[in-house]
């Protein structure tokens, strides 16, 4: 029996024998269910993108008004002026994503296989920080990474800061207002988005597969490499996407923990839109960001071979 013939949901009429051919009214049910939500997305998500596309090829000023002049040059100008912020955004977001994967995987693994009866508690602890406003938590990093704070002292004593300063991640024995602080904040803020999908896909793995691998004389490392990790790929892919995409457009971490040298493209879009009021440039920048991210996501999904994910 196919699902099409099982209209469970809305009250469409009196109970009919299910073998009768669905009436027109019944065939319309899915469309009625979809209509309000899809309309909302079309009007407030898709249509705005069209407006933005049109804004990006306008010229003019706030006083005289803007007009569509197909001035594509805006894109080139925006790229020329702000490519450092673009590259920085992708770099920071990429680094944060890799760090999230490295940090998140053991925790997701711990919850899925090792936590036992503590599993729910650990899961709660992963989700709970969500509920303290993320801005408040990001501000807390200011306290943690403050000059002369414990973290900076320890890193300084261990000469880690010398290395990171040499790499250009930190400056003169301080962490705050450096790339390292921004990446730390990004990693922190998007970590749950990595852990939860990882956990979901790890949890689906049948524990007997591990036993089987062990029975076949695979070392724990080989088991992980040949069995666990490949089976967790859907989680890895959706986790990296859920981390990378929002991180690449974020400006909160760069603004709160960074300096003018660590500005990301989100900050530029924000200030162009809300402070400079140069709408065409802002629209062009945000379009380029969207295009770059969508392109990278598509290539990534193709390459990792999990197209059915979407």
């Amino acid at each position, binding site marked *: 029996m196919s699902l099409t013939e099982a209209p469970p949901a809305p009250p469409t009429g009196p109970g009919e024998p299910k073998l009768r051919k669905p009436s027109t009214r019944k065939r319309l049910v899915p469309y009625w269910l979809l209509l309000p939500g899809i309309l909302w997305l079309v009007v407030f998500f898709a249509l705005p993108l069209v407006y933005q596309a049109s804004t990006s090829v306008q010229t003019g000023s706030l006083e005289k008004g803007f007009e569509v002049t197909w001035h594509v040059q805006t894109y080139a100008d925006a790229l020329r002026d702000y490519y450092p912020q673009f590259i920085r955004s992708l770099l920071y977001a990429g680094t944060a994503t890799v760090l999230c994967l490295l940090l998140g995987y053991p925790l997701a693994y711990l919850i899925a296989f090792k936590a036992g009866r503590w599993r729910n508690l650990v899961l709660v602890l992963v989700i709970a920080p969500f509920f303290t406003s993320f801005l408040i938590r990001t501000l807390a990093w200011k306290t943690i990474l403050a000059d002369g704070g414990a973290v900076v002292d320890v890193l300084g004593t261990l000469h880690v800061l010398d290395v990171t300063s040499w790499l250009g991640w930190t400056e003169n024995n301080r962490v705050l207002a450096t790339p390292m602080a921004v990446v730390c904040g990004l990693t*922190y803020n998007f970590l749950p988005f990595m852990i939860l999908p990882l956990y979901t896909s790890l949890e689906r793995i049948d524990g007997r597969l591990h036993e089987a691998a062990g029975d076949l004389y695979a070392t724990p490392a080989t088991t992980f490499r040949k069995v666990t990790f490949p089976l967790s790929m859907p989680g890895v892919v959706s986790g990296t996407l859920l981390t990378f995409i929002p991180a690449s457009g974020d400006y909160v971490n760069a603004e709160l923990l960074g300096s003018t040298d660590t500005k990301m493209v989100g900050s530029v879009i924000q200030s162009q839109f809300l402070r400079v009021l140069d709408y065409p440039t802002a629209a062009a920048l945000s379009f380029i960001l969207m295009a770059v991210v969508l392109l990278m996501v598509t290539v990534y999904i193709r390459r990792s071979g999990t197209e059915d994910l979407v």
Partner: protein
Amino acid sequence: MPVLRWIRRNLVVLAGLLTLAYMILPNAVVMVFSFNKPKGRFNYAWRQFSLDAWKDPCGVADLCGSLSLSLQIAFWATLGATALGTMIAFALVRYRFRARGTINSLIFLPMAMPEVVMAASLLTLFLNMGAQLGFWTILIAHIMFCLSFVVTAVKARVMSMDPRLEEAARDLYAGPVQTFVRVTLPIAAPGIAAGALLAFALSFDDFIITNFNAGSTVTFPMFVWGSAQRGTPVQINVIGTAMFVIAVAVVLAGQLMANRRKSNAGK
């Protein structure tokens, strides 16, 4: 060395716990500094234990106003997004129709787009329409970006539902309404609840989209953002701590209830 061997054997657990500590650390700092009595405007250095901020959480101008505004917006956004999203999820799982692919991408795209892009494009729409930025534009935006997450959460649950249960209900002469209310809805409820909870958290915490589309209206995240420049009052830590504690309590209570139900069902 036995210690080293122990560390090697429990490497995953140790690494996981370290990550957990990294995740909880800021919450702990927020909690500790909610009992601070700072000198001057900035609450970044520990000075003296005090309960002042806890006694008077609304003692800062506009703080509780922005908090109540955020709660209202989150409430209505959750209601709107959950209703619309649940309907979409049911339509997508239970029916085959044309344009399913298009609709699936339309649902996926808002989640696959940097927030700042959505925020900026929505602002261009509102500017073009000459809309007055404020409560309503924020609400519209929040329902928009919460919708996809609700659909995903509800879809996952509805997909794993056994359609035979509904068939059985119909075989037992339950009408469509009765089947829906007595069978379908209770089974889908955890998915709908998860979607609603997610929508509430996302809406309450959203800064980027709100920042673009709020005009001069100040929600709680925007208040925090603004105060970061002026110097954060201790009360912000109090509210952050309270949110954390309430959330943990609610989730734990839910778990306890679920456990009890499970053990009752086992009897």
